């Protein structure tokens, strides 16, 4: 099966990006160097093509009831303009996907899902509409999306794109009329820095990309640094820290699962996990040396395998070799000594918090 391309594909190629398959799309992993792009976002401003992300519109008299049914976070009576992060779960508690829910109107929600899961999610979402007066429409093909991220994101989004976004609070959005269309602009991101995500037509996204990149003030950034950035601040990636078999409780994301809600798919399973405790958990591990723990490597303790690395790097911001790993709960306490097997050798480490670098959100 050939990979899909976003509306910015030709621009990535023209910039000399190294293109790789990701989530069914041919995406730029880096333009120049992952560390340079990473540092641009931590220190100044970078722009990412995230047009591969999926968008699903939920609309109708039962829109809120439907979202409450499929989503772990609680959107009951939410104000228009608010955004919620949470998951869609299988009845057994495993994660269908993690997503953002934008409340557009009293009967209208905009759901942003992972590229790799668009087909799976949409089929699953349609299967949950029985008895609901709601329409669920996959709009993924019509939207392009940019993420403008970094401490200068607010100033440069306003100056270069003319989008007034300074007053937006973290995890809120507004619609802005520009270039004859309605854009969605939110104060969200996946880097641990302040920043915005902009949803619009392919034509608008192409134009905005050119303005930002040609300004010389915003660095084009690939998925390589998107991963190193999100990892350093402990944000999960579906497929690594959340999967069909892994629940948000096991992933340490219980704060996005509202068990006081009357009902949602998977509630019984995750409520049981919370009450009885889980047998495994995603933790952070910091290694003593520089050897790099990578996805799939074994974590060991007491001479046996106790888990697996889900994501790991030599952190660009701190220089330390760190990872997130799914390990046996018996070893999950902070400070527990564990080892990671890297190229046949065991490297000493210790269980830490998953946050290896402090977030710098503007709240």
């Amino acid at each position: 099966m050939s990979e899909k391309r976003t509306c910015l594909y030709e621009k990535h190629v023209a910039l000399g990006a190294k293109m790789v398959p990701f989530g069914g799309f041919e995406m730029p992993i880096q333009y120049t160097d992952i560390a340079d792009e990473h540092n641009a976002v931590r220190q100044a401003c970078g722009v990412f093509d995230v047009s591969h992300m999926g968008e699903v519109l939920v609309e109708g008299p039962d829109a809120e009831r439907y979202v409450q049914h499929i989503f772990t976070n609680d959107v009951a009576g939410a104000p228009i303009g608010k955004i919620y992060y949470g998951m869609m779960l299988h009845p057994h508690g495993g994660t269908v996907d993690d997503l953002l829910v934008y409340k557009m109107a009293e009967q209208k929600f905009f759901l942003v899902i992972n590229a790799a899961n668009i087909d799976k999610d949409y089929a699953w979402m349609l299967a949950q509409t029985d008895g609901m007066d709601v329409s669920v429409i996959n709009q993924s093909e019509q939207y392009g999306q940019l993420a403008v991220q970094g401490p200068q994101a607010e100033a440069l989004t306003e100056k270069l794109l003319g989008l007034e976004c300074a007053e937006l609070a973290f995890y809120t959005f507004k619609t802005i009329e520009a270039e004859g269309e309605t854009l969605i602009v939110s104060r969200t991101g996946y880097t641990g820095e302040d920043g915005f995500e902009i949803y619009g037509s392919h034509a608008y996204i192409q134009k905005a990309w050119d303005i930002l990149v040609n300004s010389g003030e915003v660095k084009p950034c690939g998925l390589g640094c998107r991963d190193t950035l999100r990892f350093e601040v402990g944000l999960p990636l579906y497929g690594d820290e959340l999967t069909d078999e892994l629940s948000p409780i096991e992933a340490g994301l219980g704060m996005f699962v509202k068990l006081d809600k009357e009902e949602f798919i998977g509630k019984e399973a995750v409520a049981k996990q919370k009450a009885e405790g889980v047998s495994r958990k995603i933790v952070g591990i910091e290694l003593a040396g520089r050897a790099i723990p990578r996805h799939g490597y074994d974590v060991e303790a007491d001479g046996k395998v106790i888990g697996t690395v889900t994501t790991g790097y030599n952190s660009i911001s701190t220089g330390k070799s760190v990872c997130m790993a799914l390990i046996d709960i018996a070893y999950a306490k902070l400070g527990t000594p564990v080892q990671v097997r890297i190229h046949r050798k065991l490297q000493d480490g210790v269980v830490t918090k998953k946050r290896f670098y402090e977030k710098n959100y503007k709240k």
Partner: protein
Amino acid sequence: MAKVIEGLYYSESHEYVKIEGEYGYVGITDYAQDQLGNVVYVDMPEVDDEVTAGEEFGAVESVKAASDLISPVSGTVVEINEALEDAPELVNKDAFANWIMKVKLSDPSEVDALMDAAAYEASCH
């Protein structure tokens, strides 16, 4: 264009060996470091380890990926380039000056199976 040095022996997996008497200095080529991008970690063998031609002896890692190092020669590791432990980026600065391990060769004739500079340069195209 990546640099190639005359007088060294090259493998298809982009390692070189520089022969000095009964010893060989093994590293990765300039072409390899360029393809790999910024090196952030070099996983080296230990002194006294036995290495075998055609087999893995370590790894060289960029931010995103680990690439196995394949030894072009067989023998015993007598020295590793300890400077790479704290400054792996030296491999990017000068891959030929910054060899990874020094091997006491057990079979010096193994280099006959490797490429010379001209053949290696041609193979990179």
